[in-house]
């Protein structure tokens, strides 16, 4: 579906091999779905157990087969009811390990992430797993997403999984909530410092900060602005820091400040933009920010001059700049 180049389609022996592999995979999935139609009766007989291996192999081949994961949940729950606690615990670990294998090869398979979360989160499952073992697994869970994010720092499944697991952990250890949020913020900050352009990490910073810091303090906002300035001074053409900057000054954080503080911060940032633009006059996002700041400061006439530059430099978005120009006129009248 994605990224299959034209003209790279194999031919001859290679084509035969691909066809065989495809047919084998389809056959695995067909067999697994066929088995799914059987009514589950405990104890599961030997022939079922043998055939059940096919489900695992089918999911390793294609972890998007959501019905097969549901099948595994049903079998697992049935065995929870009847098998010994030791067996259930080892089954549970095997299920987790199966998702690890699937995700290593297919890091974007929704149903595999879902299955993993279900094993950790579901209340019925929790009834059958010793609480220490469960807690230990949840605590070490962030290692998996850490590994996935090390391989791809933008994998939004990995990021979302971290959030979901953190919620599970907080529900088990409510007294550790603020510590857990602080640790997560430290992880995110590490990711940003590794790579200022990691947009995902900036996003998660915006989510976590309000949970960790008192946002109504001016000190907080000033420090945050210092931090983001370092980022866009280093890489002025990377949009992450600029979106974040705009949020600090036009979104919720600035709205919490008194009007005169807001104005002073806007003026400081305008100065910072101007300094950057002296060195990098074509830095588009700096110009966009400058126009925005001037508009917020009700200096529409100056904003229009900046918009002239933007229209010339970034003609694809002239519709947006036309809109901004309209805002300038509103700001004249104000």
């Amino acid at each position, binding site marked *: *579906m*994605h*990224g*299959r*180049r*034209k003209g790279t*389609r194999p031919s001859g022996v290679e*084509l035969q091999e691909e*066809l065989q*592999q*495809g047919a084998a*995979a*389809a056959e695995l*999935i067909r067999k697994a*779905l*066929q088995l*799914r*139609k059987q009514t589950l009766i405990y104890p599961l007989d030997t022939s079922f157990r043998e055939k059940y291996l096919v489900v695992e192999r089918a999911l390793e081949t*294609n972890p*998007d*087969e*959501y*019905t097969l994961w*549901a099948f595994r*949940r049903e079998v697992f729950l049935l065995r929870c009811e009847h098998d010994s606690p030791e067996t259930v615990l080892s089954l549970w670990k095997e299920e987790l390990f199966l998702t690890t294998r699937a995700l290593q090869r297919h890091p974007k398979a*929704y149903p595999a992430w*879902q299955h993993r*979360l*279900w094993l950790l989160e*579901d209340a019925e499952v929790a009834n059958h797993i010793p609480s220490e073992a469960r807690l230990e697994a949840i605590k070490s869970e962030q290692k998996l997403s850490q590994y996935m994010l090390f391989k791809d720092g*933008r994998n*939004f499944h990995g*990021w*979302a999984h971290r*959030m*979901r697991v953190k919620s599970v952990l907080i529900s088990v250890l409510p007294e550790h909530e603020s510590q857990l949020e602080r640790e997560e913020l430290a992880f995110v900050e590490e990711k940003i410092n590794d790579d200022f*352009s990691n*947009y*995902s990490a900036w*996003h*998660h910073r*915006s*989510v976590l900060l309000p949970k960790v810091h008192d946002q109504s303090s001016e000190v907080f906002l000033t420090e945050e602005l210092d931090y983001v300035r370092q980022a866009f001074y280093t890489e002025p053409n*990377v*949009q*992450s820091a600029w*979106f*974040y900057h*705009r*949020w600090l000054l*036009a*979104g919720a954080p600035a709205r919490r400040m008194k009007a005169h503080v807001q104005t002073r911060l806007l003026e400081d940032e305008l100065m910072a933009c101007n300094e950057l633009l002296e060195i990098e006059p074509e830095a588009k996002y700096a110009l966009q920010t400058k126009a925005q700041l001037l508009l917020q400061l009700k200096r529409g006439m100056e904003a229009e001059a900046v918009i002239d530059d933007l229209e010339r430099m970034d*003609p*694809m*978005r*002239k*519709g*947006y700049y*036309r*809109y901004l120009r309209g805002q300038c006129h509103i700001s004249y009248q104000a």
Partner: protein
Amino acid sequence: MASSREQLRIDKHVAYIVGLEKKTKTTDALYFTDHKRLSGVYWALSSLALMRKLHVLPQDTILDYVLSCYHSDVAAFSGNTDQDPHLLYTLSGVQILAMYDKLHLIDADRVVANIAALQRPDGSFAGDKWGEIDTRFTYCALLCAAILRRSHLLDVPAAVRYVLRCQNFDGGFGCIAGAESHAGQVFCCVGSLYLADAMDEMTREDRERLALWLCERQLPCGGLNGRPDKLEDVCYSWWVLSSLKMLGHVDWIDADKLIAFIGRSEDDVDGGFADRPGDMSDVFHTFFALAGLSLLGNKQLADIHPAYALTTDVVQRVTEPSA
């Protein structure tokens, strides 16, 4: 605007769609998409409907297949005959029936009642009984209910509150509250707000920031990406554009450049569109390419509705006051 608008090769695209059925059984390793075949049927039929050629495929055969994915015990659709019911496919099933004006073939009261049972106290929706939460499912739920004229069976205000909790620092939306913005999720969330008649629940500043984030998805090649610093892809022509359309800011991107990009992703020999120039066509990107071109006013194509993802004549039929 017309400068970069060449004629679409409608006959080739129709032939490509009609030929898909045979193709799945030969070369392409389509076992990867077999579990969502019903959505594939929706993309194929919608592509034909956009080209005003819905009639070229046999309606009876298709309806037989679609109903073979309907599980009357839970009044929901599955992704293929052997698969489990899931909200994603209930939407595809309902959309297909709406296109054929055959909604009476399912029990609308029960379909929507079962969707309502998937709603959580915080307003979010699970995709099925296993409880995965995602704003994609909110969109599926609201759209199914709208098409079946039973929105009142859902807690729409709670759904709106949950969607608004998913709005991020950049104005975009993610799969759950706190998750990163992604153009596909933006489409689902803006679509949900649109269907709930709640677009005004976003502040003007939030809407503006969102539209700016969306128009920044356009890259110098003219194509759109789904998140910052990602590659362009034809499918975002739909997700980004339809969102901008609902926000009233389609003119914030360069239509000519996008049309040219989609044109370069067109296979003018075998028909269909790929994710980007030089790649192989598939039905998914063919639909999103045509849908994007329709939103940009292509006269060879029928008009598509940005929230319903159906041609506007179908939307008119399902939304007009009943007699």
